[in-house]
């Protein structure tokens, strides 16, 4: 396998595996720390954790340039981290501090940074999908060669904005990746109870665009599948719907969630046995492409970076209530 693309050069398997590993470890450790801090009461608000789904964000983001835009979801930390957001500003935002990405105005569900193509997480299910279509429209309008990716879940694929956006992107032939992270649940409702089809990718046929299914626990597979869609989009061949079958290790909200037994422990265990990071490490080491020590070092340096970011966030000043009305409008 030799993977080369604009912006990110993966001339060898090893480079790609290191890249995917790094993105996934960063997401995992960010999320586990965030979950602990929120549930201990140290951090305000509530969180939708991305743990378990890391291979999707890592695989997709490893195909994109900084200038390519993504729109994310309520479960958006993983997308932000994988797109290159920095831990300090992210934790500061989760703490509601003035040094956060949104200066404490947005919180967990509104991390954004246009510089790295993070056009925003979104508290409304499906809300970001048409916005990604607009970002892609802007790329075509300016002929900058950019693509836009919209992330949403199996639940999000039931809302009107998905269907309108998919059709719009198709009919205007825009460079859009519609990335469905099918984790099997719309909040607490199983897929079989919220749609009559097994594969969300089938919906692509309704819009005359390709729909592809990929193992969402295999970051390399997600990377390869997405790369083909990105190349298609950049070549002016329009959008692709990518369905990544994945799983949410924690609850809809938080780590412990509401403790409602809506899915069986057996099911959780089966999916956890396919932990995307463990699978990638095993493969990389087995194939002799990475050393165990390298993997361990990544976890350790990331732990340290998380600790630094939390310390930064905790030491950061609260927003000034006198600035409450700032930025309601652009003046």
């Amino acid at each position: 396998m030799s993977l080369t693309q604009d912006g990110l050069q993966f001339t060898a398997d090893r480079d790609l595996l290191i890249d995917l590993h790094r993105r996934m470890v960063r997401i995992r450790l960010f999320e586990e720390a965030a979950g602990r801090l929120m549930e201990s009461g140290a951090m305000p608000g509530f969180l939708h954790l991305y743990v378990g789904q890391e291979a999707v964000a890592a695989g997709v983001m490893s195909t994109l340039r900084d200038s390519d835009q993504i729109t994310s979801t309520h479960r958006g930390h993983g997308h932000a981290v994988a797109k290159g957001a920095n831990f300090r500003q992210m934790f500061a935002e989760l703490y509601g501090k003035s040094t956060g990405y949104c200066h404490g105005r947005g919180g967990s569900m509104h991390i954004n940074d246009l510089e790295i193509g993070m056009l925003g997480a979104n508290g409304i299910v499906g809300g970001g999908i048409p916005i990604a279509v607009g970002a892609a429209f802007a790329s075509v309008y300016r002929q900058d060669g950019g693509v836009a990716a919209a992330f949403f879940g199996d639940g999000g694929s039931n809302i009107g904005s998905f269907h309108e956006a998919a059709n719009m992107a198709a009919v205007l032939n825009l460079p859009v990746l519609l990335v469905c992270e099918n984790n099997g649940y719309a909040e607490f409702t199983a897929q079989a109870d919220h749609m009559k089809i097994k594969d969300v990718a089938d919906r692509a046929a309704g819009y005359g665009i390709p729909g592809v299914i990929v193992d969402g626990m295999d970051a390399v597979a997600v990377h390869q599948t997405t790369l083909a869609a990105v190349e298609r989009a950049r070549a002016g061949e329009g959008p692709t719907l990518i369905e990544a079958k994945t799983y949410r290790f924690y609850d809809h909200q938080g780590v412990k969630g509401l403790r409602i037994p809506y899915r069986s422990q057996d099911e959780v265990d089966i999916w956890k046995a396919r932990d995307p990071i463990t699978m990638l490490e095993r493969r990389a080491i087995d194939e002799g492409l990475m050393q165990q020590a390298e993997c361990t070092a990544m976890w350790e340096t990331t732990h340290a970076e998380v600790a630094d970011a939390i310390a930064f966030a905790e030491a950061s000043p609260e927003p000034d209530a006198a600035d409450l009305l700032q930025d309601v409008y652009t003046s």
Partner: protein
Amino acid sequence: MSTQTSDLQATATAIETPPQRQLTYVKAFNEGVAQMMRTDPDVFLVGEDVAGYGGVFHMFDGLKNEFGARRVVDTPISEAAIIGLGVGAAARGLRPICDLMFMDFLGVCMDQVVNQAAKMKYMYGGTVSVPLTITTAGGAGVGASAQHSQSLEAWLAHVPGLKVAMPSDAYDAKGLIVAAIRDDNPTIVVLNKLLLGAKSHVPEELYAIPFGQAKIVRPGRDVTVVAIGRMVTEARAAAELLAAEGIEVEVVDPRTVQPLDTATIVESARRTNRVLVVHEAVTFGGIGAEIAAQIQDEAFDYLDAPVLRVGAPFSPVPFSPVLEKAYVPDAQRILAGCRRLLERG
């Protein structure tokens, strides 16, 4: 003098001293959009039938021919995706104009307007601006019934982050759409369907009417009528009728309901001591309630009577011409409102 000679003389006079150029409301609006598209290559237009058909009320006639399919884009009937496309493109620095045909269709894209466009600037910590313009048409009186006739400006004015313009004549239709397109915030320009053919003086050059600056359409000393959108026309008619009785009505047109020029309204209220607020929207919870409250906050001691409101009754817009006529506020109801105010104190 024969008719023919008279016509020739009239033509000659016109050439020597051109009269003020008169344009219809819809043509003035169209000119504003076209001039902005000529001025700023980042301005583009998307919506249903805006390109080939020129817009449901022909407000975009000729734009496809002049600016091409790249900048004037027909879309599927997908209001959420139309506005969402605008939000995404605007966040990336373009200046989209998204047409929503009828104001009632806000109902199918409200998430993009209220939760996305309006809030991006604030919830993303000031890092993103959304210079999006939404154009739409509101108002009753054309037999379009309940789902194509509403005046929903109060919905929009209630949401921090949005700006809402309600042009009441051709001059304002051009000046307000230009200001809206130049604005770095999401703006909604609400045209009125019954005003589309109304003519007034419209300068040829590009001009903008600043948002949040009311216009005293007609000065008067006895009663202030704050009128929104097409109700300015009705208020002027009522003022003419009352002028014949020696009652001088001041008509104030806020032009934009968000931001609202409270200062001009309050200043007028302090001079006339009596205020009637008029809009086509249902009275309950309408923008008139806000205006009345603000007047009472800032001019209570100057009032000789409570601030009164004239609006539509609390029902959907009916279809039958008889019922619709009974529904929509008009000059007679404004006149009656003024009399009630004058009877006090």
